[in-house]
């Protein structure tokens, strides 16, 4: 493998997509389909969460099966903030990223001492421990989760309208993708990608491998926390289900479908998966069968994922 390099037409594609995404709520309203604004917001949020996992998995080479824990912690931070009377998104979102990131730092500091299957298992174990912690935490609603009766504000603006929250999610996603894009080509991104490819060699070049991995893992956790906080505000709920291992699995599938280690992999995977779910479910209850076939198809015929079309790894 080599360092990620964007396709030449990436910038043009990004500008066009961004313009379309900005126009989307207007378009949906014009078509009298504004119900889908909420759905579109959900897609953006999962794109963010999957992209954060892609940073850890695709760029850092760490197969984590516990990423939903950080997603869920972000959601609970949002709900706890609401409960505590903190309604300003400029405070809530950084707090969610901070707590999720610190938690990832703790989990990573222990898990990253293991490799391979052991790493997968230990991240899974941490996530499930966190899940049961929230299930049994009465003060935070236990099984039922924790409601957010009124969405946070952002810089004083109300997010009650679905369009407003949509634009906030779009803005956060765009900023994070910009960060990931820069990071991939910066010293840090090259370092973690090289560690993914050959850990021992990097150690022998004098790189403190553990430290770089840990920071990458924590950064991924922090961004997942942002996504969780946005989702809790969208659904008005922080529920323990968000931390379930199945949620980690869903994020993993999104990254694999989209393209592991490709900048847009997480985003593309989230869009494909959620669109499939939304529209297949409408006329076919067992849509997971279609999803399964799709997964097999991708693994067999496009093992690098859909986003492989958008960038390459070879110079």
């Amino acid at each position, binding site marked *: 493998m080599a360092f990620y390099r964007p396709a030449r037409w990436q910038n043009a594609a990004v500008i066009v997509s961004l313009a379309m995404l900005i126009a989307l709520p207007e378009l949906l309203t014009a078509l009298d389909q504004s119900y889908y604004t909420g759905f579109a917001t959900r897609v953006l949020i999962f794109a963010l969460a999957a992209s954060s996992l892609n940073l850890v998995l695709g760029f850092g080479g760490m197969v984590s099966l516990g990423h939903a824990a950080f997603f869920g912690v972000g959601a609970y931070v949002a709900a706890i903030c609401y409960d505590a009377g903190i309604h300003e998104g400029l405070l809530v979102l950084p707090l969610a990223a901070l707590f999720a990131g610190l938690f990832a730092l703790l989990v990573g500091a222990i898990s990253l001492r293991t490799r391979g299957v052991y790493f997968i298992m230990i991240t899974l174990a941490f996530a499930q421990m966190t899940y049961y912690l929230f299930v049994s935490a009465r003060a935070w609603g236990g099984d039922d989760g924790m409601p957010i009766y009124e969405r946070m504000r952002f810089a004083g603006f109300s997010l009650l309208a679905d369009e407003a929250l949509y634009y906030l999610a779009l803005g956060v996603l765009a900023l994070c993708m910009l960060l990931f894009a820069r990071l991939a080509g910066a*010293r840090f991104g090259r370092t973690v990608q090289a560690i993914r*490819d050959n850990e021992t060699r990097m150690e*022998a*070049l004098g790189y*403190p491998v553990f430290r770089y991995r840990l920071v990458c893992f924590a950064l991924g956790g922090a961004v997942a926390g942002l996504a969780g906080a946005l989702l809790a505000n969208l659904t008005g709920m922080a529920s323990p289900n968000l931390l379930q291992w199945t949620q980690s699995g869903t994020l993993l599938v999104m990254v694999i479908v989209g393209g592991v280690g490709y900048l847009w992999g997480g985003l593309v995977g989230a869009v494909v998966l959620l669109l499939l779910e939304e529209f297949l479910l409408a006329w076919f209850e067992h849509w997971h069968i279609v999803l399964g076939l799709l997964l097999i198809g991708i693994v067999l015929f496009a093992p690098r994922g859909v986003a492989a079309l958008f960038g390459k790894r070879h110079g």
Partner: protein
Amino acid sequence: MADALLEVRALSRRFAAVDALQDVNFSVAAGEVHALIGPNGAGKTTFIHHVSGALRPDSGSIHFAGREVTHLSMHERVRAGMARSYQITNVFAGQTALDNVALAVQGRPDAGSSFRFWRPVVAERRLFDEARAFLEQVGLDDQAGQLAGQLSHGEQRALELAMALATQPQLLLLDEPMAGTGPEESARMVELIEHLARHVTILLVEHDMDAVFRLADRISVLVNGRLICTGLPDEVRQDAEVRRAYLGDHL
């Protein structure tokens, strides 16, 4: 020896029932080329792994540049000034030769932190200028833009060396740099190492006896995990135990 750059004292390591290294005392003086030879399975690579920090000894200590490094990790030893090349070529095959060396330059303490998240590396001309200079040193400047995986075996060996050099070591640990190369490439590698030896101390593990006797200032012989002899090339050549244990009629 007062001016020993590397000093290994009473190093022992057991793998299950096998004594891989037994009470090895060994030193490399600053500025010399010290060759470590021995039959297959004698423990040479195991020894290099202990010096570089990939493995930890059961007992004994390792001192480098006046400081004990026995408990330092591999990357800490690299930062202290020890670099190694691998017996089996170990380069980033999917990246260009230049990127491979730039990565090595970037890892050096004086190149600054790699916790930089924004500025593209390709804009850091200094890294690549320096990387190019190291490629030139090993004669690979024309291959800078080629993927490392597409270089010939000999070129990959040279690239491996350029990466080790780019960490600007005081001590270079070369684990069979001639392994698998043809006679022509070997000759070029010998020339290259001869050239490098003017600037850096070298611990050389090698099977090619012509190369060893041409390059080495001193030679140590490892047999079954024991160091049986250390001396000038002529002394080693004459040593009865060495001849019996290993060299036979090669000399």
